[in-house]
């Protein structure tokens, strides 16, 4: 027997899942957080049963790819925990009634019970249970209230006993709701005002600009603060002396020494140039990238849990339409700024293949991940802000122009946005911390191996001399089109594996600011890292991925070449 968690989007299924199984999955305050199913296990009745977290659906006729995933799960002989939103019973019951018609054994978890109480909604659970003929248990997934009862009731799961005509379903859901629900008072004025202001086109857009501005300021503040006050001192005072000691144990030279410690520069370790696994590798991951990734995920999680992101989606719908998508595609773009891998998966919330293709391609080409951003900020920041502005404004322009072009040349058109806007919620802090922690662990687990592989290969390329062969081959493009020295070939090659290491490889080359700008832009655009590539390949299929790859290569050649020309002419302005 498997336990399936089914219900409308954003009713708390993922929180319930985490609580039942101890397996932590991402939950956020917008519909469409979960886009694939996750399995976990719980002990119950001396047995171990499989529990599955499923994407949310409004009906059993799927609209998006994520919903398809959910509906496909339903066929097997499973027991369903139907997670229901106690603050919006009628909408939830619409799905419940469909599940009942399918004769699937189930129990109902009335989640968000705390919020229902706050907003003055009372539900007669006993009566609801009688009407539907299945066990109903009120719970609060965040705090775990009611879970003991929920687990005990699993064995009482049974198919519902409510008969109705299909075309009367919504009507029936309304009738049932009316007969079990009592409303005493309405919500608070303040949150209502905030709600209306942030969604109105004019005021809302202004607020959005302010929010985004401060978002980036805060990320930079936290990231830089951590680097300057925590990680740099740690590396300087602790790690460097330790590594020097290790180096002397190895005798300061040799193949093994160079792999782990790298080349010593004047007898010292230089994190920019040494390129050993334990020196430059560790420094890139923990000394530069991690602080920014951490900062980003704190802010992102806050935006996710507060419920602001769907508002942003509504406000940006206008622009997104011109790029062949609708507003919800802001979600993969925002996630992509953290890491392109989960962002590629989240394109599943889009309705059509066309939209998924456009969203994935734009994200992979023009949205740099935080690992890369951190390295670019570190490398270009030394030359002042101008270079950074040029890099990010160029990428933004590419995103817009490419979107407009794709929207024009691809057949079909963008679908309409249709989105339930969740209420604002004050982020539940233990949940938020847990989520940031999860993402950091995930980043380290997925990131460290690739960084190490990248550095290792970079080393081999250099010591074996293969790099010179490659450099000769790629010279026409790298020197001719991009105006970079041939040595940059190594960075572009490693960029297939890992963007942060690739940017790190630019550091010892002594590039001019225009060259740094061109290489940062090209490194973002020409190809996603392998991890992203493999997900995109799975999501888009070989044919579309080939198309996307073609677009990446052509556009990076064009944009890199043009930037090189323009900066060659006007480069004096930023020097």
């Amino acid at each position: 027997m498997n336990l399936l968690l089914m219900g409308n989007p954003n009713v708390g299924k993922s929180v319930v899942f985490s609580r039942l199984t101890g397996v932590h999955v991402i939950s956020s305050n917008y519909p469409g957080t979960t886009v694939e199913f996750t399995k976990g296990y719980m002990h119950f009745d001396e047995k171990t049963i499989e529990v599955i977290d499923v994407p949310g659906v409004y009906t059993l006729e799927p609209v998006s790819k994520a919903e398809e995933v959910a509906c496909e799960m339903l066929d097997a002989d499973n027991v369903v925990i139907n997670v229901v939103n106690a603050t919006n019973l009628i909408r939830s019951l619409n799905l419940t009634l469909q599940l009942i018609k399918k004769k699937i054994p189930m129990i109902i978890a009335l989640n968000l019970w705390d919020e229902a109480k706050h907003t003055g909604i009372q539900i007669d659970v006993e009566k609801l249970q009688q009407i539907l003929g299945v066990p109903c248990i009120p719970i609060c997934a965040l705090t775990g209230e009611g879970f003991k009862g929920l687990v005990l009731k699993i064995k009482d799961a049974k198919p519902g006993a409510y008969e109705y005509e299909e075309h009367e379903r919504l009507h029936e859901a309304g009738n049932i709701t009316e007969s079990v629900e009592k409303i005493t008072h309405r919500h608070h004025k303040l949150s209502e005002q905030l709600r209306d202001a942030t969604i109105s086109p004019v005021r809302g857009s202004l607020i959005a600009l302010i929010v985004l501005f401060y978002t980036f300021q805060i990320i930079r503040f936290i990231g830089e603060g951590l680097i300057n006050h925590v990680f740099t001192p740690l590396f300087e005072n602790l790690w460097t002396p330790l590594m020097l000691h290790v180096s002397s144990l190895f005798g300061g030279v040799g193949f093994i020494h160079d792999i782990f410690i790298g080349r010593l520069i004047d007898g010292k370790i230089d994190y920019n140039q040494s390129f050993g696994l334990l020196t430059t590798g560790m420094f890139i991951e923990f000394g530069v990238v991690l602080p920014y990734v951490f900062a980003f995920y704190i802010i992102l999680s806050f935006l996710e849990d507060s419920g602001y992101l769907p508002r942003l989606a509504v406000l940006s719908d206008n622009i997104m339409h011109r790029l062949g998508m609708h507003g919800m595609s802001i979600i993969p773009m925002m996630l992509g700024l953290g890491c392109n891998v989960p962002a590629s998966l989240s394109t599943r919330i889009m309705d059509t293949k066309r939209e998924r293709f456009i969203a994935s391609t734009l994200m992979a080409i023009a949205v740099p991940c935080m690992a890369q951003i951190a390295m670019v900020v570190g490398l270009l920041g030394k030359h002042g802000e101008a270079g950074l502005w040029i890099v990010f404004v160029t990428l933004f322009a590419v995103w817009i122009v490419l979107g407009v072009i794709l929207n024009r040349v691809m057949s079909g058109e963008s679908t309409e946005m249709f989105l339930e806007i969740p209420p604002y919620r004050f982020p539940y802090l233990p949940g938020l911390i847990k989520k940031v922690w999860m993402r950091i662990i995930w980043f380290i687990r997925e990131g460290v191996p690739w960084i190490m592989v990248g550095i290792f290969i970079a080393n081999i390329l250099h010591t074996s001399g293969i790099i010179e062969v490659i450099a000769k081959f790629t010279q026409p493009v790298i020197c001719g089109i991009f105006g970079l020295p041939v040595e940059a070939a190594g960075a572009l090659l490693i960029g297939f594996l890992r963007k942060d290491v690739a940017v790190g490889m630019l550091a010892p080359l002594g590039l001019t600011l225009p060259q740094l700008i061109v290489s940062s832009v090209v490194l973002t655009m020409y190809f996603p890292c392998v991890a992203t590539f493999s997900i995109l390949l799975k999501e888009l299929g070989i044919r579309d991925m080939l198309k996307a790859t073609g677009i990446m290569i052509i556009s990076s050649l064009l944009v890199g070449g043009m930037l090189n020309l323009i900066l060659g002419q006007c480069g004096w302005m930023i020097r």
Partner: protein
Amino acid sequence: MEHTDTQSKPNVFTIVDMEPNQAGVIVEIRGGQKIASRLSTLGLVVGANIKKVSRHILQGPVVVETGRTQIAIGFGMAQKVLVFCTQGGE
């Protein structure tokens, strides 16, 4: 109140043409079964009470309130929903 809409009944407007804060009852959904069933998933069916929250700009989405939730509807979709307006407006 001026509307470019050429409705036979004076009080029936598409969601797009409604004024912010105006409320009413959905009387017709055009554009076929597919759109109607999509709209019905969030409770927008003939007979449902809705209130318009915010106006669109440049053919952006419209936000309406129904029951206890707010829903954003793409411009094209919102044009297909006709509402008999009972009260409100500016």
